[in-house]
């Protein structure tokens, strides 16, 4: 391995990795918060609200994340909304994650037997109390494995941010190979392993939890 490789790898890790982590982590927060809110809204069974949430989920899950990210970064300024690279990536990834999280939360809430909420109402609890103290605590456990799979998808998809100029792992690699194309091979292998080291433990934990819950 050449010294050029090591100095490039150092920059990839020192400058790229924190950006990948930042974009991924911020998007996960938006995804979880958005998914919990919209998933609970779905549990209200209000036809008008349902229609809005379903439309949001179907559209965001029906278009490629890359097209959404390009639209946020290149298209929105034309409509008067300007966001820099990193916020654009987080907005796109967060909105996309929230759509997927909504389905997870909704599925988990509806998987809790209706007898549970009936028993809650019979105890004289209001809808909100039934939701927060009876349904959600049980549903949360079932959400954990699919949420972890979503986190893996978010970390993987954070690489798309490189295509709008965010200096994440992949983008720093792209900058480093400009002077030396032979670096493509070792640097791409290196970041593949970095992504794997982040994602594999999450995947493993998700599989374990899923087995235990089953």
């Amino acid at each position, binding site marked *: 391995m050449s010294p050029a490789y090591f100095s490039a790898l150092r920059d990839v890790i020192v400058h790229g990795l924190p950006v990948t982590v930042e974009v991924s982590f911020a998007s996960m927060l938006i995804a979880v918060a958005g998914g919990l809110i919209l998933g609970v809204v779905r549990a209200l069974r209000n036809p008008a609200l349902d229609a809005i949430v379903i439309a949001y989920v179907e559209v965001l899950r029906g278009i*490629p994340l*890359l097209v959404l990210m390009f639209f946020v970064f290149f*298209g*929105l300024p034309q*409509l008067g909304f300007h966001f820099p690279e990193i916020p654009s990536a987080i907005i796109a990834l967060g909105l996309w994650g929230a759509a997927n999280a909504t389905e997870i939360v909704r599925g988990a809430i509806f998987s809790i037997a209706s007898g549970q909420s009936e028993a809650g109402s019979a105890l004289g609890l209001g809808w909100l109390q039934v939701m927060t103290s009876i349904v959600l605590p049980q549903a949360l456990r079932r959400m954990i494995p699919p949420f972890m799979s979503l986190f893996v998808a978010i*970390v993987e998809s954070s690489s798309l941010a490189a295509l709008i100029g965010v200096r994440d792992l992949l983008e720093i690699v792209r900058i480093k190979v400009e002077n030396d194309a032979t670096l493509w091979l070792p640097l791409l292998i290196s970041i*593949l392993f970095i*992504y*794997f080291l982040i994602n594999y433990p999450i995947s493993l934990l998700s599989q374990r939890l899923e087995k235990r819950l089953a």
Partner: protein
Amino acid sequence: MPLLAAARLDFSIVRESLPELGSGALWTLEVTATGIVGMLLVGIVGAAMRTSNSAPARGFATAFAEFFRNTPPLVHIFFAYFALPVVGIKLPAFVAGTLALVFYQGAIAIEILRAGIEAVPKGQFEAASALGLSGFEQFRSIVMPQAFRISLPALGNNLISLLKNTSLISAIGAIEITGVANDIIAIRLTSAELYLTVGAFYLCSVFILSGILRSTEARLARYGT
């Protein structure tokens, strides 16, 4: 504000670029169709290895599936197009991109089909060997058809994910529909209309594909589960 914003859109650029967008759309569908075949091939062979009695085959299939599904498809695409030439393998953008997607979605398909195979009742395997079928015959005519039916909903999601992920190959210059839009935008410097149009194309394609998948599921459900 949204109304004011919408007034700034001018869709005439979409009408003018219709031939290019149409050819891009065909490429997207072609890559998706090729990818589906490749993904199923990788998935079936990988799942067979993953559930076989041979430890090396199991180990290889497990490592393959875990590595590819836990790393970004966009990086696989860059690897196939930019890193492979370093070791003397030069592939055109469409081929490199499709191959990379087949590996990523194939790795996910291996896990889906493995779960499907494990869900096939034990008695089916025993009955198959009692009939004197060879290992391959058992897999092909008894286990796989049932595992496939069990796996179909998850496989369907993977197909839809593949269709959307074909947009990633625009990053290496393949001119499927997202790439076409990017090229037009680079010249015309107006993007919102084109990305909305391309988004609508994917949305329609996803709806049609999931409709086909649902009717296939319903048709196969006749054979029981």
